[in-house]
């Protein structure tokens, strides 16, 4: 069924379709309408779940961590400082291997206060052991929420579904609302390997030593390092799981394709713009304009950011003359985090092959600074004509 909704309601509908059992959230703009919708579904009886209006984001994730440990399918959502306030819990959730799904409605972080969109919040959580997927439209939001539960529960790894505040969260778009029966077919009920219960007592997340240790039955149990290495290895295997999820999803819903990347006019392009989220759709307009001028360009949206699909990306970009990364966040003191990741993937897979493209980095839209398509196009064009700057170059800056 095709409907028209704002991005936050779209995400809420996805969570409802996935039959989350426990939802906990704390209000922060621009996430608020998403969790308000969920509280409406629960209070009106449209959704059978426990909705916990917690007193902080730290507690929101605490509720999800504990509820998931007890066997519930859980959901939370946040933005900006809410996500930063959760940071300790974000790490805990992945360390405890809990399949939590969290929407991050991307917003700039303080100081100074700014409620507008950029992606510094989720990018700052890049290294926490969560999967991170970025969405560029409403169909992607709802489909990704559904796939996210499947992936998270298969891998026992939490996942952030990220979409741009306002640009997606507060704009309405038409999309296909999946049927409940099909979602149920795609996503079976959550069956954890272990859930807290008195008949089978276990002490979870207890102090774990640097070295391996023998248990009471004489079996060797993991040390902290083994547990952490398994998180890394199993996080990497979600790259294959993502393909599987995509195939399953396509089989049931008839849409989907490449779970990692979203290329637009890249095949014969000399220069490819790369980005996360809604900006990649805006860049399509630039691509069309530059193509009219005879410049062979394309744009590649990166959907899976963690784990980083390095081989797929390097393969997609090999032989290009230049890659131009447009980012709404950066690793302060260096450059955009996506740029660094991309460079390392290209180096790893293409160094010495003669197919290694140059990489440039633009910073855009920080703290909601308006991104004019004309500015994007101009800078994109300039980058195809030579190196604009070594440092990341800020578009629309008025310094």
């Amino acid at each position: 069924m095709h409907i028209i909704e704002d991005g936050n309601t779209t995400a809420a509908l996805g969570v409802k379709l996935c039959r989350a059992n426990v939802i906990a959230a704390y209000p922060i703009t621009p996430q608020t309408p998403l969790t308000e919708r969920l509280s409406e579904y629960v209070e009106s009886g449209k959704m059978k779940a426990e909705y916990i209006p917690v007193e902080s984001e730290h507690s929101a994730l605490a509720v999800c961590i504990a509820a998931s440990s007890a066997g519930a399918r859980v959901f939370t959502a946040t933005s900006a400082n809410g996500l930063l306030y959760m940071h300790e819990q974000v790490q805990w959730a992945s360390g405890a291997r809990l399949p939590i799904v969290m929407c991050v409605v991307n917003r700039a972080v303080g100081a100074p206060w700014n409620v507008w969109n950029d992606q510094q919040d989720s990018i700052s959580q890049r290294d926490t052991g969560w999967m991170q997927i970025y969405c560029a439209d409403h169909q992607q939001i709802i489909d990704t929420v559904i796939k996210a539960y499947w992936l998270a529960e298969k891998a026992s790894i939490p996942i952030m579904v990220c979409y741009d505040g306002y640009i997606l969260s507060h704009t309405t778009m038409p999309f296909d609302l999946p049927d409940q029966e099909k979602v149920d077919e795609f996503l079976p009920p959550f069956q954890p390997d272990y859930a807290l219960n008195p008949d089978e007592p276990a002490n979870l997340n207890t102090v774990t030593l640097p070295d391996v240790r023998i248990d009471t039955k004489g079996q060797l149990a993991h040390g902290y390092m083994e547990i952490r290495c398994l998180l890394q290895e199993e996080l990497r295997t979600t790259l294959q799981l993502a393909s599987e999820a995509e195939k399953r999803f396509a089989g049931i819903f008839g849409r989907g394709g490449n779970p990692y990347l979203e290329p637009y006019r890249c095949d014969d392009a000399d220069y490819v713009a790369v980005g996360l989220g809604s900006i990649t759709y805006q860049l399509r307009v630039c691509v069309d304009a530059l193509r009219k001028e005879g410049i062979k360009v394309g744009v590649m949206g990166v959907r899976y950011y963690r784990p980083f699909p390095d081989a797929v990306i390097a393969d997609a970009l090999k032989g290009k003359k230049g890659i131009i990364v447009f980012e709404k966040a950066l690793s302060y003191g260096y450059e955009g985090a996506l740029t660094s990741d991309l460079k390392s993937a290209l180096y790893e897979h293409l160094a010495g092959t003669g197919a290694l493209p140059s990489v440039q980095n633009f910073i855009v839209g920080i703290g909601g600074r308006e991104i004019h398509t004309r500015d994007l196009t101009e800078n994109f064009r300039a980058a195809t004509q030579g190196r604009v700057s070594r440092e990341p170059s800020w578009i629309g800056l008025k310094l």
Partner: protein
Amino acid sequence: MQVKTNILNLPTQEFVHPGTRACTGCGLSIAYRVGLKALGKDTILVVPPSCLTVLQGLFPVASTKLPCLNVTFASTAAAATGILATLKTQGKEHITVAAWAGDGGTSDIGLQALSGAAERGDNFIYFCYDNEGYMNTGVQRSGTTPIGAITANTPFKGKLQQKKDVPAIMAAHHLSYVAACSAAYPLDLYDKIKSCMNLPGTKYFHIHIPCPPGWGYDPRYGIKIGRLAVETGYYDLYEIVHGKFRLTAASEKLMEKRKLVPVRDYFRAQSRFRMLTDQKIEEIQRQIDAKWAGYYKKDE
């Protein structure tokens, strides 16, 4: 009035294995052992970092026989809420959720989450075991460290501020049950837990925990010191049921006796109070006398 449990009819089933990692003479070992007996098998525990994390053992060995979720320092009560929410969706509401946290984890970093859960009325039992300092990190001051106590970060003068009255804060949340207990009176703790298990919403227990390394005394004197705290009228055993305050056990007996042991005896039995002057002790004695005069007056 509930039947008072004695050492002969206390259940023999243990939920804590013998030989935990707690220090010799640790008051927490007593309170935890007896507390878990009262809670019984159908219980899920929540524990933040503290001495209790250590007592429970290092992976893959556990010293408790109940399921336990270890959580971050500030999130104890919220985690209890999460387990409860799940049990509700699973139709397993007969299972008790019990959080056990230290005084730092309760009065300082965990207070927000605890207040949130209590305000929401989430149906679980919260135990604050109060050894009056951050013991796990090497005896630093907490919100409930008493005035005058030397700690690792109040090293010379002792703590200059009053102890935070957490049970009063929790009572201000209009809970169905708030209790103050002591490891030196484990059966009072046992009876109180049993009596509140069917009350609605959040139940709060504050347990005074003598701690040999943190307080500075020979481990064999733990119970004696815990009792002195009560017999001097310095730390009172009570319960507040639906807003109604009542002294219990040894504190209730003090009401009959109307005679308190001088608080000086309590202070002088521990090296942490070595900087407390006679003058300051007299001042504290006057405060205790005034508090008890209030109790006597209410009784009349």
